[in-house]
């Protein structure tokens, strides 16, 4: 089954005490791609992943990993699937590198432990017991254990929880490299920027259901208003004259009805201009900035964040 997708879930239902934690969830993850399952805590992300890992049996629906059933074909799948659990799954009494060597010993042809140690910066705590590691160090070790067997599919449950920015960067780099090598990566996260920067495909999950999905770029560019409005966002110093800008765009060359424009300072130093944004709008905005001797540190058009997408869909903030 060389062409089967990394993961296929079809109408999967998992109930705890009669309550559906995963509720007819369908999902496909490709090889050589990063698929993010994004959602608030308690959305059913971990249970979904655990059904893929063969750790839980779904009550309904079909789960396939590399074209195989995670429960019936567990023996064939285990050497080909790497797992990083949310709670780490590392025994507390062993030294970091000892654990990695131990997991490596389960595989016929594991990756070079020294190379992974170097890549993920494990050397500084190689002889420290897991009990004494920081959250980020444990996460890096758990990731190393997930990939040491040269998996074809990797499941990462909240991979950068508790990580400092440098660790996160190292982890993201490694994930991109795995993707380039053709590995299918499925990760859960409630971090917007992680899904935005890393994922090729995003499934937004809430209450055990997929409420939106698509290529990350498509999700970010599809707006809630279908009438061609776009949002221009810019960052500059705070307290600029928003009313003046509104006056200018409303009397701009596009000559739209005044009500079509929304101009606000969403947060101190962050401005958004929503309306029929066109090239002349950008000229108007930059002229307005120049008048006030303000330099924009960032200017984007049309780009929503996943946070916006989630808010649009649920009206709630991602916890």
């Amino acid at each position, binding site marked *: 089954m060389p062409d089967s997708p990394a993961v296929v879930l079809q109408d999967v239902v998992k109930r705890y005490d009669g309550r559906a934690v995963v509720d007819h969830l369908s999902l496909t993850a490709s090889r050589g791609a990063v698929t993010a399952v994004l959602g608030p805590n308690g959305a059913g992300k971990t249970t979904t992943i655990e059904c893929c890992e063969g*750790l839980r049996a779904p009550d309904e629906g079909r789960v396939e990993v590399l074209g195989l059933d995670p429960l019936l*074909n567990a023996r064939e799948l285990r*050497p080909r699937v790497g797992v990083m659990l949310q*709670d780490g799954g590392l025994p507390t009494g062993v030294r970091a590198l000892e654990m990695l060597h131990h997991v490596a010993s389960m595989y016929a*042809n594991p990756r070079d432990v020294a190379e992974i140690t170097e890549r993920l910066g494990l050397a500084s705590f190689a002889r420290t017991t897991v009990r004494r590691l920081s959250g980020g160090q444990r996460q890096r070790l758990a990731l190393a254990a997930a990939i040491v067997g040269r998996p074809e599919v990797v499941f990462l449950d909240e991979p950068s929880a508790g990580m400092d920015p440098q660790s996160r960067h190292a982890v993201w780099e490694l994930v991109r490299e795995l993707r380039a090598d053709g590995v299918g990566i499925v990760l859960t996260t409630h971090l917007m920027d992680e899904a935005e920067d890393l994922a090729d495909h995003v499934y937004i999950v809430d209450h055990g259901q997929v409420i939106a999905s698509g290529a990350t770029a498509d999700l970010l560019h599809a707006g809630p208003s279908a009438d061609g409005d776009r949002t221009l966002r810019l960052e500059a110093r705070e307290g600029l004259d928003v009313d003046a800008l509104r006056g200018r765009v409303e009397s701009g060359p596009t000559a739209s009805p005044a009500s079509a424009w929304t101009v606000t300072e969403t947060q101190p130093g962050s401005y958004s201009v929503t309306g029929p944004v066109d090239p002349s709008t950008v000229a108007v905005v930059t002229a307005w900035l120049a008048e006030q001797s303000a330099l924009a540190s960032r200017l984007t058009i049309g780009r929503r964040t996943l946070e916006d997408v989630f808010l649009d869909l649920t009206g709630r903030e991602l916890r």
Partner: protein
Amino acid sequence: MTDQTTAGPAVPGPSVPTTTDGAAPAWRRVASQTAFETRMILRNGEQLLVTIVLPVMLLVGLARTSLVDLDTQGYSRIDFVTPGVLALAVMSTAFTSQAIATAFDRRNGVLRLLSTTPLGRGGLLAGKILGVLAVEVVQVVVLSGVALALGWSPDPAGVLPALLAVLLGTAAFTSLALLLAGTLRAEGVLAVANLLLVLLTVAGGVLVPAAQLPGALEQVALLLPSGALGEAMRGALLLGEVPAFSVVVLLGWTAALGWGAGKLFRWH
């Protein structure tokens, strides 16, 4: 079965040779897990205290002092005490130490993580059981060495039967350990496993033969796995043969507890 699914495409990526099976051979996985489990127990201070230090102290204390009044039934103190201490050692490793270790591994997700590697659940269980036996080898060597130094002279005909009793006791008490570890919270297991060890040692027919226990406790102790193991060890090392009744009791407990653990063990 001509299942060739694992012979699919080579894992993509640089320097990855084609393999038909990415898992290490089963014996190597289990050997690796056994060594891992054994190291974990022998390196853990509290575990070492319960499995080695405490039995040695009991052995020396009971054999060399008369702090505890013993009816040795005509045997020397060391001959009378050693079989019971060996039984206690088996219980401390197969039951208390294993229950606590497994319960915390379960809480920390270690069982789940390792079961997703090629080791699998079966390999994990095999590694745990062999790890227990490895620690027991250390215990038996240390305790026998100390006992022999103190003048212990076991019945030579009873050595093999005693080893058989150790295996039976290990089976019963490991089953009990897994039943507890797989159903209770880790802190609960910590308390119960230690408490049961003390209760069974004092009143369960381990150090003191069931026949010397007061009242109905004698009958109860004979039916407990602790009493059966104690009787089996004393029978083997004092008289050269294991009482059949003890063997039946241990097998019965193993079947019941093993069945319960298989049914009720929760990996999450």
